[in-house]
């Protein structure tokens, strides 16, 4: 046989290298939801299994592809004469070759199967020896946001601590997450910490993950769940043990109340209130450069806080019926259909992890929610509660009239109030 291995291998390696260039130059594998940039043992274990599958299949691919390419080139009829040459031997195959290849395939699959089985058991639940140390939270999917519940953090008179869209967990400690849904199927996915597990009605799922170090992680719903599935996102913030304790302590407190000053400050628009196109992005490079620092900043009241505007916003929050769906513990809000807003100002995002929680973005969300998240329940209503618009109960179609009217001035006051809820 005139087949020589070395140049073929060299060519294959060069080709592979060329193919991989864009991945590194354009950062095709290094985004905020990269499954390669793992930050915890669950994601690490899943990545390790993935690498095994990659190396095994790559090895088989190189061999089979080389033989296939060689056969195609070697046995190609180059001239018309070749095609009319006497027919080649009409062989029907070779059972020994077949059996050999079947055995080799099975052996290759065993190499994949062993680590796969190990990782299935490891990733399913917190390992026995760490179970006592595990922290428990419940993640609940709703169209189209996430509610996070802390069963071990009970608040006198109002049950467990509840937050929305940003899950704060202790770092360096396994976290067992109960997965629940209040409507359709959703899926909880924070790629850097672990693969996804679905939230399925009438089925109590769970998962576990651990952030080895404090950090800020992107996640999003990974099961198609209706119109705004694409914009159902969330964040996970892992904090060092004492930071986490401090965060919990603050979250358990009732909403922060700002006393109006004796001499009202002048009101001026500090941000752009013009209507932006739908789907307009809500992220900034500044934030992405150090999201953890940004998160810390969100824990403190704004320096330019306008106390009078906050008071006005609080009144409007009641007047505009926001309180029927949103809870603000210690203030007027008592609803349970929508995200708990008791400490809304301390969250880095609004509209379920979609927009950075800047005043401009919050204003946009309050004024034009349907531009940001089409079909959202604040716009169309939920569980019998009307939203911004009226829906004809018979046809289930919008009637074209508004149930809640909001103008820029009112929205500014609401923004100021919500941002004061640190």
């Amino acid at each position, binding site marked *: 046989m005139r087949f020589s291995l070395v140049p073929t291998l060299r060519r294959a390696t060069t080709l592979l290298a060329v193919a991989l260039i864009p991945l590194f130059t354009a950062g095709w594998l290094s985004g905020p939801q990269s499954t390669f940039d793992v930050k915890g043992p669950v994601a690490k274990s899943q990545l390790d299994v993935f690498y095994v599958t990659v190396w095994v299949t790559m090895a088989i691919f190189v061999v089979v*592809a080389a033989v296939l390419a060689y056969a195609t080139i070697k046995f190609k009829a180059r001239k018309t004469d070749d095609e009319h040459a006497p027919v080649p031997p009409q062989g029907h195959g070779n059972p020994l070759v077949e059996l050999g290849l079947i055995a080799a395939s099975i052996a290759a699959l065993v190499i994949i199967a062993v680590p796969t089985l190990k990782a299935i058991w490891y990733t399913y639940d917190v390992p026995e020896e760490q179970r006592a140390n595990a922290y428990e939270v419940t993640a609940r999917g709703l169209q189209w946001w996430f509610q996070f519940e802390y069963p071990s953090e009970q608040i006198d008179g109002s049950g467990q601590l509840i937050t929305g869209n940003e899950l704060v967990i202790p770092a360096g400690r396994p976290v067992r997450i109960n997965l629940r849904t209040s409507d359709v199927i959703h899926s909880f996915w924070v790629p850097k910490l672990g693969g996804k597990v679905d939230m399925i009605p009438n*089925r109590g799922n*769970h998962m576990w993950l651990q952030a080895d170090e404090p950090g800020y992680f992107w996640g999003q719903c990974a099961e198609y769940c209706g119109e705004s599935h694409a914009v159902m996102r969330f964040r996970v913030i892992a904090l060092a043990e004492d930071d986490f304790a401090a965060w919990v302590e603050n979250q358990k407190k009732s909403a922060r109340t700002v006393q109006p000053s004796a001499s009202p400050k002048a009101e001026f628009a500090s941000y752009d209130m013009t209507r932006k196109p739908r789907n307009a992005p809500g992220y900034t490079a500044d934030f992405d450069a150090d999201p953890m620092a940004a998160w810390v900043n969100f824990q403190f009241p704004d320096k330019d806080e306008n106390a009078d505007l906050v008071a006005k916003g609080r009144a409007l929050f009641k007047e505009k019926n926001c309180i029927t769906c949103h809870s603000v513990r210690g203030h007027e809000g008592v609803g349970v259909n929508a995200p708990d807003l008791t400490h809304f100002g301390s969250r880095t995002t609004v509209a379920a992890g979609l927009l950075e929680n800047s005043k401009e973005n919050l204003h946009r969300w309050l004024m034009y929610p349907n531009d940001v998240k089409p079909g959202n329940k604040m716009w169309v209503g939920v569980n019998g509660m009307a939203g911004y618009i009226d829906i004809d109960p018979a046809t289930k179609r919008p009637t074209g009239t508004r149930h809640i009217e909001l103008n820029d001035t009112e929205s500014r006051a609401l923004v100021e109030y919500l941002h004061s809820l640190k």
Partner: protein
Amino acid sequence: MATATTAAYSPADAKSRASHRPWFFTRPVAKTGLVSWLTTVDHKKIGLLYGITALFFFLVGGIEALLIRVQLAVPNNTFISHQFYNELFTMHATTMIFLAVMPLSAAFFNYMMPLQIGARDVAFPRLNGFAFWVFIAGAIVLNVGWFTAAGAPDVGWFGYAPLTSNAYSQQFAGDVSTDLWIMGLQILGVSSVIGSLNFIVTIINMRAPGLTMMRLPVFTWMTLFTAFLIILSFPAITIALVELMMDRSFGTGFFEVAKGGMPILWQHLFWIFGHPEVYILILPAMGIVSEILPTFSRKPLFGYPIVVFSGAVIGFLGFGVWSHHMFTTGMGTMATAAFSLATMAIAVPTGVKIFNWVGTLWGGHIMTRTPMMFALGFIWMFMMGGFSGVMHSAAPADAQQQDSYFVVAHFHYVLIGGSIFALLAGIHFWFPLIFGRIVSEFWGKLSFWVIFVGFNVTFFPMHFLGLNGMPRRTAVYDGNMGWNSANLVATIGAFILAIGIGIYFAVMIYTYFKGKKAAGDVWDARTLEWSVPTTPPPEHNFHVTPTVHARDAFWYEKTHAKEIAAEKAKTAAETESHGGIHMPSQSWFPLVTAVGMLIGGLFFAHHYFPGAIAGGVILLIGVLGWAFEGPGGYHLHIHKDGSVTGGEGQDESAH
């Protein structure tokens, strides 16, 4: 038809009976024009109808895909709305699976399988026509939503409960789209099951003398396996759809959470259909490639028994791996492990096929004609799709890949690089047989290379999008996630692919009208379909029913011309002494029955039950007419000079 029926059926009898029949039982006789197509029972005409409809929907699905890619070309795009995007990806998948790839495979089953086994037609010719018209009814019901206020179905092709329930599907618009989706799939299921039963009976009963099962062409084997997969897997989705229909129309609680229903049940029922469905899409493609590779290597398929057996093993194991679509549903460790291992096991028979295709090339005289280019492209692309499939089989790795673009990349490699490449190869390969004209090599190869490049530019980057955390079925994504350039590249690739497909079909249409005439066996082929007396084949397929002496029967005929000629003369004389070639009569009733199903389906989806009942009545009338119009049939006579006499309603005593 089988000679057995001729004994009990004398031509004079038929004539006297026919003259006493009421007008609605008179069989149509048109051989050309609209009526001939509406009433045809000829497997070749029905094959063409399937093919043309499938290609039409292939283009519709392609346009849907292009709209999706335009929307995703840049982050935070506002080209189309979330709602429309959801309708597009639902209908893109549903269209490509049920209205493009499956019927295109059915087109080849219909056209080629009876020719490959040396039969005059399928076992139940009217049922064959019915399967096609029911398919059209299902296609209309599925797509009619585009023209209603509710829009097209938007629940995903997998329709996970409870998103499909009354409470959640299109909560804020009068919802008929999900009902149309249910009814459309249900009707398509009827069509598929009917067609498959017909193919199974045909392959088992109507093989030419001497054509033992282990001499069957591999494409016919794959037709048989696919048909069995269809009749065994469709009942699962039929049940699921009936339950869902009951939930939506009559308030039952199979999947209704508030009534204690189990949404997870839907997933099990859907995927126990859905996974065999994957093999329903790929096995015919494997069959086509297993015909093309030996033809253009000029040697028999390497390891024929193992290729056939591995097809059976794939079909069998295909029923035991459905929950690998559900690795993220929290099945528990043991179930996950079992389905993980079963999925890995299925890689073995699949790998075996690839080895045997390579073995077929080895030592051959490879002629790189266009069909061969597509077939070789198929092996390469299918291999890549297979390897990413093995990556999914490792459940822990799949936890990251599930519902991400990595999966999108994987199954497009299997379904475009696999199924579509093979089907395009098949169209090219059999074009001279079907239309008697041969496609230009230059333009054929050009279309192949453009499609090949476009396909890879579109789907290769999606592997990285998925591994970089981009979920599927998302209408928008933010620009700070590292997904921008890969998405743009994919969109550019999609347009290159579209241009390639455009060239391909432009060349086909040109060739149909103006292409070089090609008579007979242009590729020096090996199987019986190429032994027909003329291209395109006459309605009765073969002047003389072939007798098979070996695998690759036509190759044997060509290498044993003398004996075969003598044998054929003998068979011809025998056939004539039995009254000639028995042919099936055309009929209106398959169409009438299918129209009843269409009308009933549309009204049922609209929850207007009197209308549904009216449709049912039309269906019943069609069935009754079908039963009472009689078996029909007529005889053809082949003369020594090759001329054919006889036909429906013609004087049978002429001979």
